[in-house]
């Protein structure tokens, strides 16, 4: 059965010298380079390509393009398996492997096709009603059945091995579609010198033009198309992108397109991505996206072998494939006569042309003159055949003259619907035109215009003229000097007679409207009978137009049938809203390179490798990576953390603190600025000193805290928490630019100008003195607690801050970023004899919990300064952001949860963050919960598990009380004692060493 339906000549897209081997459902076939999977299967006489969603009816391809509802397959295998791939646009490559889907055990014999027998129950809305007997069975029984039969193809379960990329472009004129109208538009716009981008979904331009029958500028259309493409590509100001689908028309004339870079290959080559997503900022847009042919609703209109007439012609002309050997054409318009002519020219038997129109149109008359049988006033009423069509029964519209015609291909044209998908996305309403039986776009409302078939212009000459004018108009409106008028490409004028409405042909069987979702004409009537009047309700109830083709071939018929049921004209029914994307787009393409480890950029500190060398385990802190702990060989996580914490208090530790946000602030009003930002005062801070500061949001809750130093009269250096660095800088931008532009204050981030280490522990001074040598006097006198000094150290400008998060004698040393490693090494070297160890964020946390210092866990955006025990810091002598709203009754309520310490009582195993504190274990509920534990550690310094917590009433009410740390998630409920959060060295004596 090899290439039984391939004609000996013809096929402008295929290269007969390049044969391509491929497999479908395990069987090997041969096609040609340039084929689609659908054309190659048809060439091999394979008509059965899929099963429908609900009834599992056998289906062949209906169309030759991206609007295909039936012939959808699983393409490729393994991690590259792509479900629901339209065989009509899948380009053939050597070794292509595809499988039919939604069938078991095989495409030819599908067990679930018994659903057809159940079809009385599976009509519109079946989900909602049928499975109510009995309701209690829904979840355990029916749901499983429904879910198992859900969906079409199988997605891959392994990570997608291919890459995707994004790309950006700008143009004066974007032309969508390279059919005759689009080519004419791109040519005319291009000749004005405008920057033009032409995108075309197909691998080749030309659209629905008939390459041999049509004539443009006195050339066979195929030649004109080829010449036009060459002309466009020769223009420097024009870019043509084929295999590129414009799928979304977004705000401000930004459009998105998907370029299928490698889908026509077995796998991407040469570091190319699989697909590339284009974001296009176009000044003006010409939409020339054509139209979609419609099916007629007649019984069994879904049999394989029943196809749209235009698709039949494309298979013949593009691929040299005869979809059948004996073809019956049924139409309500003139376009199908082109199919007849094409088939005739290719030597395929056209048994009859069944034309619903009572009067012979000029095209019909010509066909008759050429010896073709034309049955005017007839419509198809039933397709007959087992797994594919073998004959069709036709009759007059009044029911008389019934006749059965044998055929193996039934080519149907129910008229053309202008493709208004993209233009609808701009908000343009489709308006109904009775003369063409289709919706066309209303007046443009963005910078776009429609031309050609998508505007309802179906004759070739008209398309060319419109396209040409649209291209020039777009260029002009984009601000390009368009110069003298140019001549539009020309084609012989055709007289197209009007189509006649044929929606439901006579019959009582299954006449499909939406093929993929198995929505029949009867379903639409039924939905209406059940009281669904709105087109949106009917869409949702029947699922009309909700399949992967978004109803491109079915919506108009569905609306027409609803109009019939409602007894109203079509415009009164209206349309449902088209939603982007125009055709389905791979999720990976939207993500682009932002996946896996690349989901977000990684920020590394200057000393990252120092940590690595010492065996650090890193942890994500926002985008940063920070050393979390430094396990020695054989050491567990906890052992490592507690060893590090213990060692800091015994000797000394070094910790990379580069990720803290750092902001340099300049100007005479800096002090005043800080006064307004922070709750505490700043004007009296002397140069060379640092101070802890707390800032609120305008609603009175704590925003961030940190240490800020005064380096000179008009120069401050602020630090923020790692997590809030960006937020604080934005907050300051607002304050400086919007609130107080009169303040002479200027600032910028210096987070990456400076890197820093904290050196903490009794030996810290000794170590740094050794490291600095004569560069800095480390004495208490020169560098007292909260003192700040700048100094030159080994050729680097360094800053040292005597501040302590751990409660130990501690310093933070900053040097410019590129000296980070050198600084680390120098201090490391100096600490060799003083028991210096590296410590990570976990030990840092242990140390600060022991001291009762708050951190991220305690700053959850719902805490006030008073909640944290810092109410007294709020100055009453000056105004600051958040001051007023922090005074609302609910925020100063004495029943607020405030910061306390918790100590695990002996006997219990451990404490965990997130536990709720209750007084009575036997009466633990949402109302009796007094608060929650924020941070915990098994404190080496205290000798037991301790934690920080917020408790209603705070220390005032609970000091010394025993509460339960209720933790149902872990099935734990240990006893804890409430105590001061200053567990260790409460008098703060250790900061002096």
């Amino acid at each position: 059965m090899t290439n039984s339906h391939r004609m000996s000549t013809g096929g402008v897209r295929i290269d007969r010298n390049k044969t391509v081997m491929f497999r479908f459902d395990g069987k090997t076939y041969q096609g040609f380079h340039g084929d689609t999977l659908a054309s190659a299967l048809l060439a091999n006489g394979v008509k059965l390509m899929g099963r429908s969603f609900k009834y599992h009816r056998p289906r062949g391809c209906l169309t030759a393009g991206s609007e295909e509802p039936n012939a959808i397959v699983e393409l490729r295998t393994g991690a590259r398996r792509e479900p629901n791939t339209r065989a009509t646009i899948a380009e053939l490559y050597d070794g292509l492997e595809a499988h039919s889907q939604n069938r078991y055990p095989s495409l030819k014999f599908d067990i679930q096709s018994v659903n057809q027998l159940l079809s009385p129950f599976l009509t519109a809305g079946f989900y909602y009603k049928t499975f109510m007997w009995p309701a209690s069975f829904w979840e355990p029984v029916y749901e499983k059945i429904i879910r198992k039969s859900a969906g079409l193809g199988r997605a891959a379960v392994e990570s997608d091995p291919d890459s995707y990329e994004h790309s950006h472009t700008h143009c004066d004129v974007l032309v969508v579609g390279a059919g005759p109208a689009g080519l004419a538009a791109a040519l005319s716009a291009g000749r004005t010198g405008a920057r033009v981008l032409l995108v075309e979904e197909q691998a080749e331009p030309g659209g629905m033009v008939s390459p041999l029958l049509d004539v443009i500028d006195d050339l066979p259309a195929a030649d004109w198309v080829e010449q036009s493409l060459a002309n466009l590509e020769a223009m420097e100001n024009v870019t043509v992108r084929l295999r590129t689908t414009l799928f979304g028309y977004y705000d401000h004339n930004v459009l998105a397109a998907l370029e299928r870079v490698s889908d026509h290959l077995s796998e991407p080559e040469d570091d190319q991505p699989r697909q590339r997503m284009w974001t296009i900022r176009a000044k003006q847009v010409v939409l020339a996206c054509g139209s979609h042919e419609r099916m007629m609703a007649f019984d069994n209109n879904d049999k394989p072998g029943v196809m749209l007439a235009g698709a039949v012609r494309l298979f013949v002309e593009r691929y040299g494939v005869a979809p059948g050997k004996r073809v019956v054409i049924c139409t309500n318009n003139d376009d199908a006569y082109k199919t007849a002519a094409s088939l005739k020219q290719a030597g395929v038997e056209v048994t009859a042309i069944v034309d619903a129109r009572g009067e012979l149109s000029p095209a019909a008359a010509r066909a008759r003159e050429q010896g073709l049988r034309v049955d005017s006033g007839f419509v198809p009423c039933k397709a007959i055949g087992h797994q594919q069509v073998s004959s069709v029964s036709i009759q007059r519209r009044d029911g008389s003259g019934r006749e059965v015609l044998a055929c193996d291909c039934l080519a149907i044209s129910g008229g053309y619907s202008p493709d208004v998908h993209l233009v609808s996305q701009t908000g343009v309403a489709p308006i109904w035109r009775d003369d063409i039986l289709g919706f066309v776009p209303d007046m443009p409302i963005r910078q776009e215009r429609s031309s050609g078939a998508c505007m309802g212009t179906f004759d070739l000459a008209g398309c060319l003229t419109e396209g040409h004018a649209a291209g020039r108009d777009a260029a002009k409106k984009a601000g390009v000097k368009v110069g003298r008028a140019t001549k539009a490409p020309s084609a012989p004028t055709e007289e197209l007679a009007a189509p006649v409405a044929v929606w439901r042909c006579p019959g009582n069987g299954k006449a499909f409207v939406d093929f993929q979702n198995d929505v029949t004409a009867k379903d639409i009537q039924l939905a209406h009978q059940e009281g669904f009047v709105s087109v949106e309700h009917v869409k949702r109830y029947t699922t009309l137009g909700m399949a992967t083709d978004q109803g491109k071939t079915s919506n108009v018929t569905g609306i027409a049938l609803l109009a019939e049921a409602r007894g109203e004209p079509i415009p009164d029914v209206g349309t449902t809203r088209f939603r982007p994307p125009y055709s389905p787009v791979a999720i990976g393409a939207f993500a682009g390179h932002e996946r896996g480890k690349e989901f977000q950029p990684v920020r590394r500190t200057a000393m990252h490798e120092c940590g690595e060398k010492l065996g650090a385990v890193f942890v994500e802190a926002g985008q940063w990576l920070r050393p979390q702990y430094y396990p020695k060989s054989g050491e567990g996580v906890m052992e490592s953390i507690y060893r590090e914490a213990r060692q800091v208090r015994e000797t000394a530790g070094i910790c990379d603190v580069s990720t803290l946000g750092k902001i340099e602030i300049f100007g005479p009003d800096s002090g005043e600025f800080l006064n307004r930002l922070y709750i505490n005062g700043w004007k009296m801070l002397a140069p060379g000193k640092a101070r802890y500061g707390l800032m609120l949001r305008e609603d009175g809750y704590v925003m961030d805290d940190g240490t800020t130093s005064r380096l000179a009269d008009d120069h401050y250096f602020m630090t923020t928490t790692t997590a809030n660095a960006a937020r604080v800088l934005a907050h300051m931008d607002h304050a400086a630019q919007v609130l107080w532009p009169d303040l002479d204050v200027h600032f910028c981030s210096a987070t990456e100008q400076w890197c820093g280490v904290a050196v903490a522990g009794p030996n810290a001074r000794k170590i740094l003195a050794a490291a600095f040598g004569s560069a800095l006097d480390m004495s208490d006198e020169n560098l007292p607690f909260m003192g700040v000094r700048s100094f030159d150290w080994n050729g680097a400008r360094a800053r040292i801050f005597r501040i302590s998060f751990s409660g130990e004698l501690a310093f933070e040393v900053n040097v410019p970023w590129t000296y980070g490693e050198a600084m680390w090494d120098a201090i490391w070297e100096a600490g060799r004899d003083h028991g210096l160890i590296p410590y990570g964020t976990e030990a840092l946390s242990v140390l600060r919990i022991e001291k009762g210092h708050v951190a991220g866990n305690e700053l959850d955006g719902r805490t006030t300064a008073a909640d944290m025990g810092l109410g007294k810091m709020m100055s009453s002598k000056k105004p600051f952001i958040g001051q007023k709203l922090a005074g609302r009754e609910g925020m100063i309520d004495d029943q607020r949860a405030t910061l306390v310490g918790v100590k695990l009582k002996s006997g219990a195993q451990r404490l965990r963050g997130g536990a709720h504190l209750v007084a009575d274990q036997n009466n633990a509920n949402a109302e009796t919960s007094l608060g929650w534990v924020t941070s915990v550690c098994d404190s080496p310094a205290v000798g037991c598990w301790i934690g920080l917590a917020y408790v209603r009433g705070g220390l005032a009410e609970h000091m010394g009380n025993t509460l339960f740390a209720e933790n149902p998630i872990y099935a734990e409920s240990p006893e804890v004692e409430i105590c001061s959060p200053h567990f260790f060295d409460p008098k703060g004596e250790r900061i002096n060493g």
Partner: protein
Amino acid sequence: MWRDPQPKAEYDVVIIGGGGHGLATAYYLAKEHGITNVAVIEKGWIGGGNVGRNTTIFRSNYMFPANTHFYEKGMKLWEGLERDFNFNAMISQRGVINLFHSDPQRDAFARRGNAMRLAGVDAEFVSPAQLKEMVPILDFDNARFPIQGGLMQRRGGTIRHDAVAWGYARGADSRGVDILQNCEVKDILIEGGAAVGVETSKGTIRAKKVAMAVAGHTTQVAKMAGINLPVESHVLQAFVSEGIKPLIDTVVTFGAGHFYISQSDKGGLVFGGDLDGYNSYAQRGNLPMMEHVMAGGMAIMPAIGRVRLLRHWGGIMDMSFDGSPFICKTGVEKLYLNGGWCYGGFKATPASGWCYAHTIAKDEPHELNEKFTIDRFRQGRMIDEKGVGPNPWIQ
């Protein structure tokens, strides 16, 4: 399904808004309080707002008691809903899992999970090993933010959203409630400091009580009565892929990016992320958030790369300034407010309708909704689950 009546001159209660909440309110007014002389007034077609354009998830995994009890009431109503109105809404308790990716996040989730458990709501931690079993396509090997575990509510899940609107509509209609479609409220009539009816595109309709339930248009309608609310309207996008065979059996949310996902009964992957982030009444979103959401998907489930996005759309969220809703009386007598649902409105539908019906019928809130007042902001008693403060676009 329901009648298409002409408006009467007067009703006991007029509900503005034929979305999920309005219809549910009418249903419970009739069923629980015997108040059937009720009209639900809808500008377009019923169920055309957020109840028809959400991602169909229900859950009650909140931290603050005001929310936990309320949403748990909703959960219980969901569980009995189908029998209640003899209509299959395809309720599927497939579980909702919030992934966590760091120790602080784990602790924050523990706090929430414990709050749920203490309120009698189911919650549990699931380990990476369990997650691998439940959601095999999660990426544990190459994640930018490694998955450490998840907080799971097994009773959470998904429902067929349209069925909810239709079920309530049918139930209300059969009890005598008039559903007036294509009827736009132009003004709220106030006499002597009390609401007495509405002016509509179909004429004046008087009412003993007027109740607003208009989601994204809450501030617009409230303004008719001179009420200014701490609410902004923002667009939230939703996405659905082509139908594929079952791949994801639960609802999964990514804790380190804006992404959540489930799979519908028809096989589509239904997913979403965060607000587009600017005031909007347009039911469409833009590219940056789309790309961001799908990057979130690819960050934790790189196998979905070749699954195709079928459609995306937007809904208008009535974002309150603390992320929590209003079901309360207003400064105007006999005028009631239901709004500020942010993007949590769908799952609240039954509880919202039930509590709102109570509030309207008794002219005082039920204890389940007594904290959902407008005054809470002035009092400084916000219910801010996210802790991001008065910035509705990031709530």
